């Protein structure tokens, strides 16, 4: 067992426990975006940062990937953490403002400005869909391709994958797809029903410029449409 202190409170956890799990156990909230129970932690969104160590040695680490250490001092809401978290959310807003998940997180953390060049990415490369597909669906149909600026998610060669089980799991976990599907009026949702595989988006003739990241998309595959033709 490992003893550490989170926000001054002592806690004893099993070896291999992450700081995020330890903080959850004590009830300290830490926002997350690319973390999901049941999937291996990936540390991509940086939203779950916490501060560890003392004085000049203090540093920020991602709590979802950092394992508890004996005698560690963790602060989940120090001013440095709060500042970093807001900045990270601002950056996420800059890249993917149409994500309902990101919007909600930004609102909850009192982020009131976005000072970077505005982009409209379809994907924040959080890797949730890839891990879902691999770890829960055992399919490995989609993955990361290319690198750097050109990094993207999809199937090999952008063609229908024979491994895909059409489970919809990838779309279900995607924080960027949600609003694309529900648009900005959830009650008039365009789809949001990806998971049950009959999304209304495919019934609509026009899909405007709401690009869907799933290429090929489960729904589109069923109707035989390609994203580019929508």
């Amino acid at each position, binding site marked *: 067992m490992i003893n550490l202190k989170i926000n001054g409170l002592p806690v004893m956890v099993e070896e291999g426990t992450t700081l995020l799990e330890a903080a959850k156990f004590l009830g300290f909230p830490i926002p997350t975006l690319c973390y999901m129970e049941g999937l291996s932690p990936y540390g991509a969104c940086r939203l779950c940062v916490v501060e560890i160590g003392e004085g000049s040695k203090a540093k920020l680490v991602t709590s979802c990937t950092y394992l508890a250490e004996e005698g560690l001092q963790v602060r989940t809401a120090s001013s440095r953490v709060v500042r970093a978290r807001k900045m990270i959310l601002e950056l996420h807003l800059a890249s993917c403002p149409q994500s309902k998940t990101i919007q909600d997180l930004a609102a909850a953390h009192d982020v009131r400005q976005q000072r970077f060049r505005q982009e409209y990415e379809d994907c924040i490369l959080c890797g949730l869909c890839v891990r879902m597909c691999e770890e829960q669906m055992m399919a490995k149909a989609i993955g990361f*391709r290319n690198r750097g600026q050109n990094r993207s998610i999809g199937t090999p060669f952008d063609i229908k*994958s024979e491994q895909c089980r059409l489970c919809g799991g990838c779309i279900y976990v995607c924080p960027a797809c949600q609003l694309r599907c529900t648009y900005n009026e959830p009650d008039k949702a365009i789809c949001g029903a990806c998971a049950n595989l009959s999304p209304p988006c495919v019934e609509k003739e026009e899909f405007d410029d709401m690009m869907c990241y799933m290429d090929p998309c489960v729904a589109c595959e069923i109707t035989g449409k390609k994203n580019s033709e929508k």
Partner: protein
Amino acid sequence: MTTDEIPAIVERHLDDQGGLISILEEVQAKFGYLPADALTIVAETTKRPLVDIYGVATFYRAFSLTPRGEHLVSVCVGTACHVRGAPRVAAEFERQLDVKPGETTPDRKFTLETVNCLGACALGPVVVVDGHYFSHVNASKVREIIEKTREGLDKIEIKTDRRIFPVEVSCSRCNHSLMDPEHPIDGFPSVKITQSFGQQHGWLRLSSLYGSYNIEEEYKTPYDTVLHLFCPHCHTELIGGSDCPECGAQMVPLILRGGGTVQICPRRGCKGHILDVG
């Protein structure tokens, strides 16, 4: 080369760690690029998910999923070449060939790519066309390089050609010089080594001009045979290099006077070589 040979390539690399990259390198050397079918077969034979293989193949710039042009122009934009004006050279190639780095001209003649350091910084800006090194390149030389390439790089007059420079090499075991001033090729002392193929042993003399492939040999060896090469002084076999980027045969390392190594491919007719100015 058909995709039938791929399982054999995979077999050869199965037990070395990180074998996937070597497999893809060899497949690319065979086809000139990585065809979709080939990747699928690699996935099947390695029993790895296609998406992982596709991920690796698209991650590294050394791999190409589209056919490359007949000639590969690599412009070094590494730090040393950069400060000496490589970006202007790259821009000039882009303008004259009318393609972006990574692209191939519509007539499939040229593929342009930028690379980060070829290990010949002192000669920078460096441009490599089909394994031929051009040193101290500036924008005004670009047209000449393209024209020479169109004419055929192997036919060019050696004396007036600045991209070719003589090297002095020695045995990687006994460090004895392999240069033979008595028997010049291309006007420079040749490199003399012993070659053996089947029952025949005889001398082989190579041009010491880097970029020239002129050789003379005591016995004619058939094209495409992988030769065993020996040091004429200590008689040890010259082996232990990396795999040839062109054909995959194990290369022969030689020590460069002044530091570094040069590796040559022992396959008769193969022009694979690696220059590593340490």
